[in-house]
């Protein structure tokens, strides 16, 4: 079986951030890059485009710091290429071609940073780190457990789906195959039934770790804010401060 790229391991991780910092960064990313908050013109426009450029550059740095050079490089090349197309090629085209190119490059430049950051967050946070961070934020156990199971479960679903996909391709249940109408059913049903099985195993494993007990659980995982966290925190705080300023018309 091939090594799972989405599962975080504790060894050789490079620079480690607090999960709370990553969460904050993710929210900032979705507001400013994905959501495109802030002004578009005047001095404020320059400030906000600077913020979003910095934010777009961050996943690259973070992936480098987490020793995922290949992913970082791929991201940088694709993003830059799309950005160049977006800036230089789109003004030259008209009509349907413009619609197509603008759509593709616009969507990719907007979504890539957030998706990459999401990938970074999931791949660099262990489940116990995540749980520890959520506990420090005083979130109810009823939300923490399902969420941490979800994070643990996403890569598994991906793996299972890939295997099911291969099996179904062998039986000709693919796009353009002879059994196209069965595509959805023949993928969802096996996925669901094996997920239920995995769920039962997970519950059993969790029980042995005292998840069902009545006492408060402890966590040996050490998390805390370091130098690098403060840098990211400061960046996000500045961005939100600017947003508030522009809401009141100061900028």
């Amino acid at each position, binding site marked *: 079986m091939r090594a799972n790229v989405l599962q975080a391991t504790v060894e050789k991780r490079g620079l480690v951030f607090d999960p709370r910092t990553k969460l904050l960064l993710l929210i900032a990313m979705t507001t400013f890059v994905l959501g495109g908050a802030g002004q578009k013109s005047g001095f404020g426009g320059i400030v906000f485009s600077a913020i979003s450029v910095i934010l777009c550059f961050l996943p690259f740095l973070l992936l480098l710091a987490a020793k995922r050079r290949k992913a970082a490089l791929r991201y940088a090349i694709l993003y830059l290429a799309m950005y160049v197309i977006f800036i230089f090629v789109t003004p030259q085209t008209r009509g349907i071609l413009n619609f197509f190119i603008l759509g593709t490059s616009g969507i990719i430049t907007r979504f890539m940073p957030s998706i990459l950051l999401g990938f970074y967050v999931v791949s660099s946070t262990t489940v116990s780190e995540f749980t520890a961070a959520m506990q420090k934020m005083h979130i109810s156990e009823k*939300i923490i457990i399902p969420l941490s199971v979800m994070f643990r479960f996403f890569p598994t679903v991906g793996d299972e789906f890939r295997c099911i996909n291969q099996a179904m391709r062998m039986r000709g249940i693919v796009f353009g195959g002879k059994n196209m109408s069965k595509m959805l059913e023949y993928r969802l049903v096996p996925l*669901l039934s094996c997920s239920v099985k995995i769920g039962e195993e997970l519950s059993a494993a969790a029980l042995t770790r005292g998840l069902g007990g009545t006492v408060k659980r402890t966590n040996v995982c050490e998390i805390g804010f370091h130098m690098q966290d403060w840098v990211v925190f400061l960046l996000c705080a500045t961005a939100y401060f600017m947003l508030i300023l522009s809401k009141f018309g100061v900028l």
Partner: protein
Amino acid sequence: MKNEKLMGKDLINIGIFSAIYFIIIFAIAMLGYIPIFMPLICVIGPLIGGIPFMLFLTKVKKFGMILIMSLIMGILMLLTGMGYYSIIVGAISGFIAEMIYKSGKYQSAGKAVLTHGVFSIWMWGNFIPLFTNSEKYFSTRQDFGQEYIDALTSLLPPWMFPTLLAACFVCGIIGGLIGKSVMKKHFIKAGIV
């Protein structure tokens, strides 16, 4: 009713089914960047989402599980940049869905279908900013091009707002029926339910 409190096993079940449900919805939502599919998310989402959700309902035996799943969907939408509206809508619709399923003592099959109909309304929450604050919404999507915005505006006139809500509910019910028949065909025979 010997044990009313949610145990680890229940919470893990919520996590697993939320993960599957979210992946399916996310895949469908990706289609939304083709303008015509944007309003259709409210149709396709509940239709396909019914299959995992009906299976989830067979695991629900205690109060709170549907509500928590609904809230988690809202939180994930916030994290993926769809705004905070779906948390609010999800909290309300999740609570109503919970009450409906509870009134059937967590086993009535007919109520389960209705539950999925109500539960599906959280998806509608994502569309609220499109209607209440459409100028701001589109100003943040300038990069997609004027053609995209024009196409979307013509696809989503104001009367679509209540229509989408109804679409979520109706398709949720149809999705629930689909889910039930798939369950009958596959899962009950296999002894999973």
